[in-house]
């Protein structure tokens, strides 16, 4: 009795118990998962210990783990420059000749600003950018400068409205940020304490906007809003697509088996598998991410698949015995191993996603794999139990129609086509393979054309309000996609002798300058140098030594007699000036470099606008002097820069400066506004800056580094491309290993990998040729389809092998039976899974659609490839395959080749995982592998020669 039979027998006899346990586990898991969230709805609840509520995570930042260098840097910079994620409200008026710069529109904008201040929770009010909250600096007549609110109160006349526009356009910081360069639109920027408040802000603002009359259009956008809306849409998707998939599968099965009571069982299995997996996900405390929200829709078709096999067999056999238990035991005997292997390969395909360095993808992969194995477990236990619950009389006619069905089916349209196809593959094997090679070459070219690109805003469909807002606002403004370019001065290396050399030289120079006015300056500065010489060895940094010197000088000054008092005052001033030498971003040369860097950014064509410290200095300088263009420049000394900046801070918003530079003036950041959130464009800008910095080495040894969401997207995408490649390689190896073990032959194992490999290459080639961007969903698919599509190959090859065996290795005579029932079963399965994914097309979000379309295509193509390329290959390799088969030993370790191939595969797999998880260097791994492989090969050789194998070999020989 095989394990499958034993299991089926036990489960059938203990049908009640099996069902009870299944229901109990499902209820417990479901409750544990749902309870905390329901509990939370009650007021005054206490958190339930150890349980997690359902959390949703739509933050693209989380595509990288929290301790990823770029995220750590991003968070640090956001903190030290007090930057927040912003909700952007764009206001456009297409009817008025002055756009929104008319009294009515400005009044409404002011009202909305006020309303936001009072009602938007978590708004960082001091950083709110709106006409009534920002400052204007301008000439106010001869010798007078004005600091005032840009729009203190909404204007009464059209002329006043236009003057507000002109003022804003004249301030570089506001032009193309607050007011569009065409002077017709306004953008309000609402920084929020936390991103998760943005949906509430969105709703609050919408409420207020709904009360406005007038013909202004309001567009609310910004990444935090997009993310939050995405979260909502994600649930819509789960509520629509998953049940729709269920319905489609249900209908298909009804079509195939025409027995309602029977096809309910796969539905139950699918439901239970989904509840257990998602429940497990929630209980463990993982948030529901865009990826994990797709788990149900992946598990459902796969879960149903095994049950379909069982039903199909049961359907065929029931009428032979008319005994439920006997039939199911027989069926399970037949299917236990294939089902285990198809489940294992599918699970391996998904589980390999754990090799990607992207946490949400890892969670997705692992839990889908878990779900698949759960579904398998449920299928092999619950199906026998369920069959026993069906009253015998309801099965009376079951499968009856099927008597002589084989004939009937074979002459159906499907049967005829498949038969013809079988003949074709035999006769035209070589042309088919040649064609395959051509397809592969074309696809290879296509793959080389793939553009790697993603854009979270484009996750929304074309007609979504967010996309519309994105389009309109990027049309009017310098861009709503923010990235930041940080420039940092390196830490200063301190060495007392070098410090003193510079200090003394400048002290002498200063003393010399002062000599005429203060005759005792040289004497005092000489004393200063002595103080410095005493203190320098005691300190470990420039800052520390200057602090020590400053303390000493202060004492000297306080005790100084009248005649040296001024000189000591100058000495103290000199020490402070020395301290300020480290404030590199007050250095005019550095600021001019930043201005040049800004120009380089603008030259990329993607950056619509950038804001930097240099603009602030230039603007203040211009207004302090003439107000004319000629004074829009960086002044010539650090002190002049500092004094301009003090004036900038004499405003309503003094802290605005600290968004651009840190108070120690050693870190600055450029705000870069991109008109496109495409990673490709961000990447282009990044490269342009790198090239600029290479060709124009920055002064003061500055180094640059990017941060901001738009940039983070680029980083995780780059990781995803390599990560997916590794995951794909990993799952390829796992599946290959499983196949080799299953078929006890490396050649057969390799053969089973062919159709899906061809398919994936072809599909990705097509993606490249069509010009579709290689984005997250496209990337994830490779591993998924691998695990799924190999099912067809397993079934096809397993059956082919059996028929080959039956026909003594004569493929020609094996073709017709192979293209009979097995080919039809495969075709049906292709239809079920491929159609099962199509409801994703109903989803309101692009990634789901992409997954739906591509997965259905991949499954269809790989199914077809299985039925065409595999038989053609078998035809060509007939001799080898058959002779290999003749020597087939029973144990894996008994065939030396199989053993070695498996060992090497396993070694590579382990090496890859180690490189991924423990960051072991490849050199080390190569050495370890080089040692491990020969040892394993030797072991294989020894094992294959052992007594047990010989005995079996001879046994096999005898039977053959």
């Amino acid at each position, binding site marked *: 009795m095989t394990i499958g039979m034993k299991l089926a027998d036990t489960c059938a006899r203990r049908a009640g118990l099996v069902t009870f346990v299944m229901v109990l586990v499902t209820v417990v898991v479901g409750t544990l998962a749902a309870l905390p969230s329901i509990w939370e709805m009650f007021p005054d609840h206490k958190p339930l210990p150890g349980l997690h509520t359902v959390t949703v995570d739509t933050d693209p930042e989380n595509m990288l783990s929290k301790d990823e260098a770029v995220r750590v840097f991003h968070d640090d910079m956001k903190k030290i420059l007090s930057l927040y994620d912003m909700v952007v409200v764009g206001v456009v008026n297409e009817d008025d000749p002055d756009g929104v710069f008319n009294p009515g529109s400005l009044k409404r904008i002011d009202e909305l600003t006020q309303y936001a201040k009072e009602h938007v929770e978590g708004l960082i009010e001091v950083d709110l950018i709106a006409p009534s909250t920002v400052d204007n600096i301008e000439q106010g007549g001869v010798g*007078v400068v004005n600091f005032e609110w840009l729009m203190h109160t909404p204007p009464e006349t059209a002329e006043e409205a236009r003057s507000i526009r002109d003022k804003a356009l004249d301030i570089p910081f506001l032009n193309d940020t607050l007011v569009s360069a065409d002077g017709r639109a306004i953008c309000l920027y609402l920084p929020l304490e936390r991103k998760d408040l943005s949906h509430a802000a969105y709703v609050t603002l919408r409420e207020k906007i709904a009360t406005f009359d007038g013909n202004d259009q309001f567009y609310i956008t910004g990444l935090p809003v997009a993310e939050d809306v995405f979260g909502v849409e994600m649930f819509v998707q789960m509520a629509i697509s998953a049940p729709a998939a269920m319905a489609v599968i249900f209908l298909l099965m009804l079509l195939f088996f025409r027995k309602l009571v029977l096809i309910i069982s796969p539905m139950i299995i699918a439901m239970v598998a989904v509840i257990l997996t998602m429940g497990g996900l929630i209980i463990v405390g993982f948030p529901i991410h865009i990826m994990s929200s797709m788990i149900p829709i992946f598990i459902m078709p796969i879960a149903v698949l095994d049950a379909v096999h069982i039903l199909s067999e049961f359907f065929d056999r029931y009428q032979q015995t008319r005994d439920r238990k006997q039939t199911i035991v027989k069926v399970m005997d037949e299917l236990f191993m294939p089902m285990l292997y198809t489940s294992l390969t599918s699970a391996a395909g998904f589980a390999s996603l754990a090799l990607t360095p992207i946490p949400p993808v890892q969670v997705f992969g692992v839990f889908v794999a878990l779900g698949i194995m759960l579904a398998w477990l449920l299928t092999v236990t619950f199906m026998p139990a369920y069959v026993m619950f069906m009253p015998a009389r309801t099965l009376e006619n079951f499968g009856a129609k099927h008597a002589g069905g084989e004939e009937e089916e074979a002459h159906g349209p499907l049967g005829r086509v498949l038969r013809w196809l079988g003949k074709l593959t035999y006769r035209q094997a070589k042309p088919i393979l040649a064609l395959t090679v051509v397809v592969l070459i074309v696809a290879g070219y296509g793959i080389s054309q793939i553009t790697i690109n993603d854009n979270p805003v484009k996750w929304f469909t074309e007609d979504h309000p967010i996309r519309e807002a994105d389009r309109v606002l990027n049309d009017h403004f310098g861009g709503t996609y923010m990235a930041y370019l940080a420039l940092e001065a390196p830490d200063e290396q301190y060495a007392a002798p070098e410090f003193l050399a510079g200090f003394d030289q400048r002290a002498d120079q200063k003393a010399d300058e002062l000599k005429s006015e203060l005759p005792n300056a040289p004497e005092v500065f000489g004393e200063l140098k002595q103080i410095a010489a005493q203190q320098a060895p005691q300190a470990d940094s420039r800052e520390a030594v200057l602090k020590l010197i400053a303390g000493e000088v202060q004492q000297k000054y306080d005790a100084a007699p009248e005649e040296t008092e001024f000189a000591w005052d100058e000495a103290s001033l000199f020490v402070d000036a020395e301290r300020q030498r480290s404030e590199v971003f007050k250095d005019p040369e550095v600021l001019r470099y930043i201005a040049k860097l800004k120009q380089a950014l603008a030259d990329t064509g993607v950056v619509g606008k950038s804001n930097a410290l240099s603009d602030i200095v230039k603007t203040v300088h211009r207004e*302090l002097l003439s107000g004319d263009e000629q004074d829009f420049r960086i002044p010539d000394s650090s*002190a*002049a820069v500092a004094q301009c900046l003090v004036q900038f*801070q004499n405003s309503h918003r003094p802290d605005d400066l600290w968004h651009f530079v840190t108070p120690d003036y050693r870190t600055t950041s450029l705000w870069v506004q991109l008109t496109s959130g495409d990673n490709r464009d961000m990447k282009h800008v990044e490269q342009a800056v790198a090239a600029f910095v290479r060709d124009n080495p920055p002064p003061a040894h500055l180094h640059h580094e990017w941060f901001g969401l738009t940039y983070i997207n680029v980083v995780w995408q780059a990781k995803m491309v390599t990560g997916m490649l590794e995951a794909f390689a990993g799952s390829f190896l796992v599946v290959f290993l499983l196949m080799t073990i299953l078929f006890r032959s490396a050649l057969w194992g390799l053969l089973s990998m062919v159709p899906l490999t061809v398919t994936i290459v072809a599909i990705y080639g097509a993606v490249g040729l069509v010009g579709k961007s290689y984005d997250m969903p496209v990337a994830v698919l490779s591993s998924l389809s691998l695990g799924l599509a190999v099912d067809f190959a397993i079934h096809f090859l397993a059956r082919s092998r059996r028929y080959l065996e039956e026909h003594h290795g004569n493929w020609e005579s094996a073709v017709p039976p192979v293209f009979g029932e097995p080919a039809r079963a495969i075709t049906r399965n292709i239809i079920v899974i491929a159609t099962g994914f199509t409801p994703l097309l109903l989803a309101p979000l692009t990634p789901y659609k992409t997954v739906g379309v591509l997965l259905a295509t991949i499954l269809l193509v790989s199914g077809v490839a299985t039925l065409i390329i595999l038989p053609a290959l078998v035809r060509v390799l007939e001799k080898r395959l058959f002779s290999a088969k003749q020597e087939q030993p029973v144990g894996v370790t008994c065939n030396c080749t199989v053993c070695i191939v498996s060992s090497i595969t396993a070694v590579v797999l382990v090496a890859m995982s180690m490189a991924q998880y423990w960051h072991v260097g490849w050199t080390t791994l190569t050495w370890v592998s080089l040692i491990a492989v020969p040892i394993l090969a030797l072991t294989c050789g020894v094992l294959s020669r052992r007594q047990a194998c010989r005995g079996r070999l001879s046994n096999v020989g005898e039977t053959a």
Partner: protein
Amino acid sequence: MKTLKMLALIVPAALTLALSSAAARAADPSVDEIVRKTNYVSYYQGTDGRADVRMKIVDKQGRERQREFIILRRDEPEEGKSDEQIQGDQQMYVYFERPADVNKMVFMVHKHLATDDDRWLYMPALDLVKRISSADKRTSFVGSNFFYEDVSGRHIEDDVHELVETTNTFYVLKNTPKDKSSVEFKYFKMWIHKDSFVVVKTEYYDAEPGADGKDPAPYRTYEALGVEDVQGFKTVTKSKMTDHRTGGYTEMEYDHVKYDAGLPADVFTERYLRKPPRKHLR
């Protein structure tokens, strides 16, 4: 009310100062009296005054910046009035010393009760003297949490004053602006020490009191952290302004305070912006 105001004007300053606290408690002064005395103690003590100020600006992240400057102040003399009665026009000269790169920068104000103030700025590195329009005095004073108006003093006529509470030690005044559009607060409250008329705390609110009459959370708070007796004048020597919205605060420490220093009027003219009056700055 009018008579009270008259009375307050008539009562000689010396007498007021000499009054023991017990006597003061026996008859609480009128609101106007409190306002005027407070205004005097805060901004008008002596005929003139000077102080070294050390300013420490601290942001939410605890990062500190220092500024050091000297303030000279002179009250415009009014004939026949005692020192305490003089609460009229005033001049201020703020000379920056540190950090080194703003050394010699000067900010000067001619405060007028009847007309707009005149304000000047001298930036030595640009060798530039500039008039600043004084439309809005509620902007940051050189990047600190203090406003220009906090330094130069808010005109007492700009607000309606109510005495909302009298405790054992404080008069609590509620001040509501007459022109709401010119300021960012709805009202502010001052805790005035009963004996010295030193403002110990001021809270600014940007919303009206709740239905229960309770004040909303202040968004800005001033505190006097140190008071010393200088030449017989109660003088705040350390103060702090906290901005609850940004989480930052600024402390000012006054050193070498001197009243009645005999500052000549011409120190407070444009001529001295470029050429600081060294003698008076020491």
